């Protein structure tokens, strides 16, 4: 059959069109069945994520409330020192913002980039109505900080609604007065060390989970069903216990006057003044999160190991391999999809974990999500929170991509 001569049905209809028609109703039914979930996912997942990503680069607080000054910034190149027209625009905007009661919003926005400036805006705003030309002198008289080039650089940055500034902050970078990107002073670097700590602790937790879960999963997979079900319940117990109950019991166990320390002291292993600090620090975070996330490692491993025919190891043994060689060369490689799935799952969950570190992490055991929560709830810098979240999301996506390249997503078995 040549390419110019398409297949037709018995009554001459092109075969492709006949097939489409025959499958149309099935396709519609499939779509209708999927539609509710699709709608749900769009409303509860895609839209909020999209909004968050948008917010991380978009903050209209300054341009919306300071139109004249924004116009001056747009007309002049970066690094231009403020002239009389600039001060006139600033005074006019401050008057208008004071009348609209939006000075505090503008102040908060500039305060993100230049801490301590919120009061400058609110204080000047209260006296804005009294400002008279020449505005440069009037403003500098009101507060000498209005002449600070750093303030003008910060206002210029804030004057465009779309800004990479929040991402710069999230990476401990800042824009200098002349507009170049530089690292913030060492004592003010917060986010990058916290990201590193988050990934480091998550990797440690993932490793611990793997070490603990591998033997258990192997045992579950080889035991008769009756026993493995019982053991499985023990593994899943953390899932079914209230988070607070679990955390409280960790506190009871791990605190300085807790069960473990008291036992060690009673046995004479530790002196009474040498009690271990195992909670409200990184150790506490690692122990508690390993416990919580262990089932996410056990389940994929178990489901993969269950499918590995014991004949493989037997075959290896009969072919002359010692039990260690058979494990290393035959069994272990076949569990890789489970290891990959479990590690990916645990790592991704750990990177975004919030409650457990908040409760048992103390100061040194906090993760990046605790800081995101801080910016959402306390400092109300939602754009920065969004930028941090987006970076976290980006890291997870990169990880996922790496996993796909190395192991292949279709090899993943989640149970």
């Amino acid at each position: 059959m040549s390419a110019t001569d398409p297949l037709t049905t018995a009554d001459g209809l092109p075969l492709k069109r006949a097939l489409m028609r025959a499958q149309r109703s099935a396709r519609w039914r499939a779509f209708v069945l999927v539609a509710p979930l699709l709608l749900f996912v769009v409303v509860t997942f895609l839209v909020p994520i999209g909004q968050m990503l948008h917010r991380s680069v978009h903050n209209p607080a300054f341009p919306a409330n300071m139109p004249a000054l924004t116009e001056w910034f747009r007309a002049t190149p970066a690094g231009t020192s403020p002239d009389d027209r600039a001060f006139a625009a600033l005074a006019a905007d401050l008057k208008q913002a004071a009348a609209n009661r939006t000075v505090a919003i503008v102040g908060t926005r500039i305060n993100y980039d230049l801490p301590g400036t919120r009061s400058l805006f609110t204080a000047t705003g209260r006296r804005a109505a009294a400002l008279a030309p020449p505005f440069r002198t009037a403003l500098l008289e009101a507060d000498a900080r209005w002449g600070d080039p750093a303030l003008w650089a910060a206002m210029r940055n804030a004057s465009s609604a779309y800004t990479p500034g929040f991402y710069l902050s999230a990476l401990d970078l800042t824009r200098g007065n002349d507009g170049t990107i530089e690292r913030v002073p060492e004592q003010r670097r917060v986010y990058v060390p916290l990201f590193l700590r988050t990934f480091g602790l998550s990797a440690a937790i993932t490793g611990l989970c793997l070490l603990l879960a591998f033997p258990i999963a192997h045992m579950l997979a080889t035991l008769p069903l009756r026993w493995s079900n019982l053991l499985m319940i023990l593994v899943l117990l953390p899932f079914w216990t209230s988070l607070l109950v679990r955390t409280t019991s960790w506190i009871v166990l791990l605190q300085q006057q807790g069960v473990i320390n008291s036992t060690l002291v009673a046995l004479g292993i530790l002196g009474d003044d040498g009690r271990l600090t195992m909670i409200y620090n990184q150790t506490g975070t690692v122990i508690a999160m390993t416990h919580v996330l262990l089932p996410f490692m056990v389940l994929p491993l178990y489901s993969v190991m269950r499918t590995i025919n014991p004949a493989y190891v037997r075959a290896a043994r009969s072919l002359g391999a010692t039990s260690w060689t058979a494990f290393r060369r035959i069994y272990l490689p076949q569990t890789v999809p489970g290891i990959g799935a479990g590690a990916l799952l645990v790592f991704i969950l750990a990177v975004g974990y919030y409650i457990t570190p908040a409760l048992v992490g103390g100061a040194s055991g906090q993760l990046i999500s605790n800081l995101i929560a801080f910016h959402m709830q306390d400092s109300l810098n939602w754009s920065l929170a969004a930028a941090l979240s987006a970076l976290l999301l980006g890291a997870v996506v990169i990880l996922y991509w790496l996993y796909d390249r190395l192991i292949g997503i279709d090899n993943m078995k989640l149970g």
Partner: protein
Amino acid sequence: MASMSRDAAFVEFERVQKSYDGETLVVKDLNLAIGQGEFLTMLGPSGSGKTTCLMMLAGFETATHGEIRLGGRPITQVPPHKRGIGMVFQNYALFPHMTVGENLAFPLEVRGIGKSEREAKVARALDMVQMGAFGNRRPAQLSGGQQQRIALARALVFDPELVLMDEPLGALDKQLREHMQFEIKHLHQSLGITVVYVTHDQGEALTMSDRVAVFNDGRIQQLAAPDDLYERPANSFVAGFIGENNKLPGIIEDIGADHVLVRLSTGELIDATPVNVTRKGQKTLVSIRPERVEFKPEMMPDGAHSIDAEVLEFIYMGDLFRTRLRVAGTDDFVIKSRNTQGQRRLEPGERIRIGWAPQDARALDPV
């Protein structure tokens, strides 16, 4: 039971018992000697203990009691990887994450054989099963029959003297299975290896083996060459398990050295050969192969008793005619006749007389 001289025995089971739960014996008092170069099949229904015996020989199960010797050496304490026994598993157990070549190289690698020698041996083993071009494929890319060949090559590549096969052809379709039976047989003959083969397929056991051990209930019921097994079953289990058999229950009327008269429940008398009956008045089960029953008077052996039969069903099977009869009160008496020129087709409802040579009917223990 054929007994082998001690020197000739390459594999020996001596008084071997096996229990998994400490309450029941899966293998009860197994004694078996397998000669060097022999093809021995363990045949039996599932749960008869045959696979357990194989696993004990391979070293994956330990005997609860008794001794297993390989080449005169007790191997109970030898771990599986030091026994040097090649094994083909039921589902081939080809390592899915390795290529065919890597699968075959594995036993050589763990033995520390150098790369060049390894490659030569792998190539030779692949050629032996006509799979030379498949070294770089993954097992999943092969058909069932090809996987089977690779599994075979892998079990042979390190030149073991003994190869165990655990229902290796069970997953193949009928035609391929028959083809592979011949290939395995040929490999056995050309390499001179000893093969212990486990199957529940009697056809396979009969076509391939030098001797067959029929297992049931943890015991060897009969150990014999295929023709012996088929033509001279030692008891009712073997008679019923191997091939098709007609069974007529009755009571010994008269017993001689190689001839008995059996009175059936309907009062008729038939001839048979005594196998495990000893005295008059004993209950017995007479077994006769369907193809040894005659219904044409001119073919009936001289002096043999004949009995009444009513034709119930005639089935045309191509090369054979299969006729179901009512004989002595049972409805499932079957006779087979070859579809030769002029062979008579019996009509349902027809009344005939049937008979057989006494040596074809065997008076066995009652079930």
